[in-house]
């Protein structure tokens, strides 16, 4: 709209920035509280008079967390990282291939297969929780990385999103590849996959978040302390007898830090990818 801007438009623009600024402050307050409380002494957190900043920032709280003998926080961070990375990579592989097959290979019963995938989205995971647990236990996977990772691999939602995305992938490029003699396999790996990084990174992010933040499953499968994830470690502070708010908030901050850093660094890719999830089509 390359029209000279009138006064009401300028006022509108100013108002818009006031609204955006206000919204941004509200959205950042919880992060601020996490850091504020995490750097306070217990008595500062529960003091009757509000203070915006810790009177004396307690960086020692971080050390206290990492040296707490009851909570293996470093080990649990490592476990979470291994689980989330492996799960993300394998979900991309499994769902990416399945999504492509469902979108592009003209198999007679493809629609029926698609519906059996989509139907599982409607069933809350907690419904099948106990049978899943018994199944995994029967396989002897309790307290193993296998038991923690494989459960999260078959993501119907990721497959569905991949299928929607591949439907919108330019057909002409693929047809050119087919004429060059590439089969389904070659087309997928050499043409389609390398041109889908934005979308792949979006699915990767969603999967990584889900994996990193998972709680109930790791809780019952990771029965040994050595197989705890960081979410389980954080939860121990909620059950400790003496209230330990400062360590609880530091632990929570540590638990979300990797994701926040990832968001900030990968932000452009993620946004672009989410925008292309294809649900908008």
């Amino acid at each position, binding site marked *: 709209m390359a029209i000279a801007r009138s006064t009401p438009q300028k006022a509108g623009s100013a108002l818009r920035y006031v609204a955006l600024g206000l919204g941004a402050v509200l959205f950042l307050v919880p992060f601020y509280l996490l850091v504020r409380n995490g750097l306070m002494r217990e008595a500062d957190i529960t003091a009757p008079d509000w203070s915006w900043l810790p009177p004396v920032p307690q960086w020692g709280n971080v050390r206290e967390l990492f040296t707490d003998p009851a909570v293996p926080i470093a080990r649990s961070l490592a476990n979470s990282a291994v689980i989330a990375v492996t799960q993300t990579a394998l979900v991309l592989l499994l769902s990416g291939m399945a999504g492509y097959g469902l979108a592009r290979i003209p198999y007679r019963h493809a629609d029926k297969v698609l519906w059996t995938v989509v139907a599982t989205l409607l069933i809350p995971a*907690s419904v099948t929780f106990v049978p899943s647990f018994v199944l995994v236990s029967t396989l002897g996977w309790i*307290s193993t990385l296998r038991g923690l990772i494989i459960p999260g691999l078959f993501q119907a939602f990721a497959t569905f999103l991949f299928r929607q995305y591949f439907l919108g992938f330019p057909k002409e490029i693929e047809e050119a590849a087919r004429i060059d003699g590439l089969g389904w396999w070659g087309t997928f790996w050499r043409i389609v996959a390398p041109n889908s990084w934005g979308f792949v990174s979006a699915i990767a992010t969603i999967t990584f978040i889900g994996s990193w933040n998972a709680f*109930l499953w790791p809780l019952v499968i990771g029965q040994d302390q050595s197989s705890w994830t960081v979410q389980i470690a954080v*939860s121990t502070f909620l*059950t400790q007898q003496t209230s330990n708010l400062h360590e609880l908030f530091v632990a929570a901050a540590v638990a979300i830090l990797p994701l926040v850093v990832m968001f900030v660094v990968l932000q452009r890719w993620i946004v672009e990818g989410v925008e292309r999830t294809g649900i908008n089509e």
Partner: protein
Amino acid sequence: MTSSSRPTPRPTSTTIGRRGFLGLAGALGAGALAACGGNTGRGDSGSGATGSNGKPAIAQWYHAYGESGTQQAVEGYAKAYPDGSVTVKWFPSGYDNTVASALLTATGPDVFENGNGPSIDMIQGKQVVDLTGILGDAQSDFTPSLIERMTYQGKLYAVPQVTDMQLMVYRKSLLEKAGVQPPTTVDELLAAAKKLTTDKVKGLFAGNDGGVGVLGGPMLWSAGLDYLNSDQTAFGFDDPKAAEGFAKLRTLFTSGSLLLGAPADWSDPSAFTQGLVAMQWTGLWTLPAIEKAFPGDYGVMAWPGLASGDKGSVPVGAYGSCVSAKAKDVEASKAFVKWLWVDQTDKQLDFAQSYGFHIPARKSVAQKASKLSSGPAADAVTLVNENGHAQTPLLWTPKCQTAFSDGLNRIVRSGADPTAEIATMKTVADAELKRVGG
């Protein structure tokens, strides 16, 4: 209601992180990752029930006790067992659910603790083994009410570990300043709470739900009633006095003298030790922390009687050590339970008083507990003996407890009619009694 029968219902915070669409438990996969398994302990499930040194391997499960040092202590006991290699598993949260699910499988615990012994459904579902006779000569030395609570149809299903109790603590100095005596009836308590409430301090704290979770039982006993009748065949509080007692809890809730929304719940002493309240309903286990905060400036008492002449009450319970029917070696597991919770009295004493305060389940050991022999802790022991009631009866099932908690919530927090709510509770309890008792 997972904790209905737990002697020390601490907040277990079974926080669940299942996020939107990306359900975590939905899917499990083929053996593609077998190579990166990294089996972290536990050994082969089901087969070869022997540890590294040829002794039977026993997995023992505990919920996470909140006091630091407890976990190291029980690991030490396990290590000291000469006739088996015992591994301890310690669950930071969701213990009840994890045990319940794990008992369905062969990879569950061999020995585990459960609040007030196994549930009626665990016993009727044959998930736990009969331990009758395990106490031997010591049978008469155990607190009889605990043994009775863990017995069903003449068979013993658990060995009590330590006695736990809930009680009221109060700041002596604040009561004196307000000119208030420790209350002996509920009405006096209401008046005292009001008088003790100031700008900065509330009169009473009984949990962030206003006491709904913990005061229902004491209110019944203090009215001379109980959940079920004495032989557990019928609903126990279809009585105007129950309605009157519950109505008093409603009055307390709306009086403005109750602390609500504290960061920690009733099982944690911090509301009291931070000076937010003058009185708090809590557990025996908090006394060391309270002693540290206000040495000599606190006292303990029971939940007062409903009317003058009614006797005050405190709930008493115990974690009981059970043996799973799917244990790899049932006899070895029973032998370990006998060794630790019947024979090793020095370890029982250490467990009871070195971390949080508990009362040893064996009377002869309780007499040796020096930390329980004076001051408010000694008063608490007296309360157990004179005002103690088993927390909930064995046949008061989780479903009954949900109905009880729902009804009490409606009475206390939204002012529903107590008589009508009690009638609803009775309907549920009658059906459950028919199911498990019939």
